[in-house]
């Protein structure tokens, strides 16, 4: 598809330090980072401590509204929703993070290879990319998890596959514009091979761009995981997951609306935090966009 050829963050070259300094000074980055830190901390603490044991079903406590004892109330099995959200954060973060890792680990080398080789390698890789892009991500994720069975691992694979073309396309586009630069030409003249140039000159120069995209894909991964778990295709019980909490809440919506509200707020805050961080980073690394978004 014809996207206007803009890879603004590639030029002019900005030193990494000044970009990070600007990011730390950016309000949206700081706010986003604070939220993300809170969610990550909650997930980590849940390994050692949660207010209540979520594997313990106490029917006497079922469908309790939020109170001092149960901060976010309890579900239809009497489980503490706050504790479930803490543990659910683990699942969301792990799935989305590994899925971004898969996308980067496969997509970045493929994109860099296409940019270095051009010709038929480039053509084949980009056409394959087009095909993967043509499959709406929700649809393919549902297909993959349905074929290989529901579960966190298959959700990771399903979401990860859709990150591959995103990173491949980004890497290829940015790398292509660098390959025509004088300093790359100088490196070639001095006898460096394509792989060495890619590792030593291309990748360090597009790292910022990859980090920004990584943050965005991370937040999309959180949403995708929630959607899959909602359909029952993500992490399986008894492991709490935000999406499945929402699907369970749906049947109880008239009796206990709090069951639906808090997991949703957890998803929104996490995605919001990551998006704000990504925006802050992008603005910091790309002076042209500053103040526009």
């Amino acid at each position: 598809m014809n996207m206007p050829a803009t890879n603004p963050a590639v030029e002019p070259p900005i030193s990494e330090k000044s970009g990070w300094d600007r990011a730390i000074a950016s309000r949206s980055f700081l706010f986003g980072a604070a939220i993300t830190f809170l969610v990550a901390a909650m997930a980590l603490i849940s390994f050692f401590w949660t207010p209540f044991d979520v594997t313990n079903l106490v029917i006497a406590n079922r469908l309790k509204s939020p109170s001092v004892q149960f901060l976010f109330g309890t579900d239809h099995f009497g489980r503490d929703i706050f504790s479930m959200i803490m543990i659910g954060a683990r699942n969301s973060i792990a799935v989305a993070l590994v899925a971004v890792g898969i996308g980067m680990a496969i997509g970045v080398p493929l994109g860099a290879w296409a940019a270095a080789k051009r010709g038929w390698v480039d053509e084949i890789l980009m056409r394959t990319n087009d095909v993967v892009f043509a499959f709406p991500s929700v649809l393919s994720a549902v297909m993959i998890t349905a074929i290989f069975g529901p579960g966190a691992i298959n959700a990771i694979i399903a979401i990860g596959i859709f990150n591959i073309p995103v990173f491949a396309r980004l890497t290829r586009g940015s790398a292509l514009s660098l390959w025509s630069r004088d300093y790359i030409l100088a490196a070639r003249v001095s006898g460096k091979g394509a792989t060495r140039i890619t590792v030593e000159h291309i990748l360090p120069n597009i790292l910022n761009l990859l980090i920004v995209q990584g943050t965005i894909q991370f937040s999309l991964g959180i949403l995708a995981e929630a959607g899959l778990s909602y359909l029952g295709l993500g992490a399986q019980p008894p492991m709490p997951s935000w999406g499945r909490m929402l699907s369970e809440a749906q049947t109880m919506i008239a009796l206990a609306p709090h069951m639906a509200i808090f997991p949703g707020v957890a998803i929104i805050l996490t995605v919001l935090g990551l998006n704000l961080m990504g925006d802050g980073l992008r603005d910091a690394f790309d002076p042209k966009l500053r103040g526009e978004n």
Partner: protein
Amino acid sequence: MSWFLTRRLVSLLVTLLFATVVIFAVLEIIPGDPARLMLGINATEEAVAALREQMGLNAPLVTRYLSWLSGLVTGDLGTSLTYSSKVSELIGERIWISLPLALLALFLSTIIAIPVGLFAAARRGKASDTGIMAATQFGIAVPNFWFALLLVYIFAVVLRWVPSGGFPGWENGFWPALLSLAMPAVSLALPQAAILSRVARSALIEVLGEDFIRTARAKGLTKNQTLWNHALRNAMIPVVTIMGLQFAFLLAGTIIIENVFYLPGLGRLVFQAITQHDLPVVQGTVLLLVATVVVINFLVDVLYAWIDPRLRSSTR
């Protein structure tokens, strides 16, 4: 233009052909025997073997692919294993829920996003702009199915204005049917509207910095005239691109939303077909969705090239 069109058309066909291979191959991996599935677990081995032969499941992979492909060309998508009716008929029925739903959502998202984007761009940097941008950040972070639950709680449980789900059918009157699509469409549209208004705002801000805008202002047009008559038209390229992508996303988004509202549309059809291993239905529906995405991308590209001739020479 004709060279550009030919190139894009060939690329479209190659992508579609490639997609048919992927869909066929992926679904071949699904465990389970379709013949056994159709006859049930009590069927005798002989009956299953006979049905396998009749369904052509014993033929080599390539032969089966080619026969599926030739069926596609003539519009024959095969027969459903669970509904025992033609896949094309099933899709033909269900699409009358999903297509209006996606179109309604796209319409809602556009009529919200364009004015919001315009307003924010015109007040760039002011408090109202910052407020709108914060609201759109929030809108992007909201999962559509959670928003759907919230709508169900407010409008179906508390206020009792609309049913919480289901579809009465178009034959029972236009308005009741449309009303049952209202909440699903709003929940699909909100996050998309947030994205689209950000795109519209950025595009407008970029256009507002161009020389011809200064010229328009210099020749005496008011700020609003410039915005509506000159800036908006020129900012439409990125907006239309995102709308094209969003339509495909909305159509696929029906998989989750139709499950929230128990709407018997394409999304629910494909979801149920996948879980029931109803291969012909999955293949047909997935291919239809993928073809829609590819064709929309093609149309957006052609529209681009038509609007901006400079893009015709670029290869991608």
